[in-house]
């Protein structure tokens, strides 16, 4: 218990810290509200009900993702990571547009070499230490949901993630 740090930062809180806390609170609320599944209420129904109630907050979260600048190192950090977590319990809506999905795909492209690496000798403990599962898995789930609902978004993700045709041709020559 002594090792725990103080909860409050010194000085005035910059907006980014308040946004991060608001996203964490949003995640808690969504987690509880969408887990009350029973015979009458499916998870999908509860997610839609929650999304209707928190429509304005979700709009802000999507705007935040669209506008946030990506850092080449430590890409999946606050508040982007918290925004991705917040979307985990929210159903797909047309608000998940090209800008949002494109930014999330770029984040994945930047985060994978940083968190997973390409060293064949790397063991699972090293990956755990970097918390690759905790950060990349939610991002993949959100991207998968977007891809499953919209063909045009699927095309954007494919274009960014899959090898280019010319590259495949060069590889096949060898």
């Amino acid at each position, binding site marked *: *218990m002594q090792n*725990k740090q*103080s*909860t*409050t930062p010194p000085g*005035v*809180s*910059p*907006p*980014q*810290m*308040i*946004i991060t*806390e*608001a996203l*964490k*609170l*949003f995640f*808690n*609320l969504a987690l*509880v*509200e969408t887990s*009350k599944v029973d015979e009458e209420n499916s998870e999908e129904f509860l997610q839609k009900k929650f999304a209707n*109630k*928190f429509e*304005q*907050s979700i709009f*802000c*979260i999507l*705007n*935040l993702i669209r*506008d946030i600048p990506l850092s080449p190192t430590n890409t999946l950090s606050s508040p982007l990571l918290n925004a991705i977590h917040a979307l985990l319990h929210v159903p797909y809506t047309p608000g998940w547009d090209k800008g949002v999905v494109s930014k999330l795909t770029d984040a994945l492209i930047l985060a994978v070499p940083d968190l997973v690496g390409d060293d064949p000798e790397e063991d699972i403990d090293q990956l755990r230490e970097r918390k690759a599962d905790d950060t990349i898995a939610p991002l993949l789930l959100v991207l998968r949901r977007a891809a499953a609902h919209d063909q045009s978004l699927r095309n954007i993700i494919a274009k960014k993630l899959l090898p280019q045709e010319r590259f495949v041709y060069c590889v096949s020559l060898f």
Partner: protein
Amino acid sequence: MKTLVMAANLSSGQYKESLSSVEALKCIANSLLLVSATKDYFEESNALPACNGILFRSDVSGMSRFLAVRILFFVTIDRPSTVASLVDNLDIASGLAQVSYSECARESRYPIKLTRTILIVYRL
């Protein structure tokens, strides 16, 4: 906790910001983080509506808003009844939207301020 809630001006129903109330909010947030049982005392002191009310206020500082959101985050961990009360009775959806809107707007201005500060430092 009762004393802290009173010092934070959360017991009267509407939060009044002062130097001491902000310090009391910091103490409440630290208590909730370090000792989970204090969540019961916080709710028994009927501080939840006033704390949630801070989200709707534009006349309080960023620190008060930050601490209110942080306190609400701590009290909603593993407490479905608190979450239900916030969502169904206290309209936290609107409060959270208000905070998100105003802070996202501030955030978009923040890098400009930072760039100007760096420029001044460089010139000095």
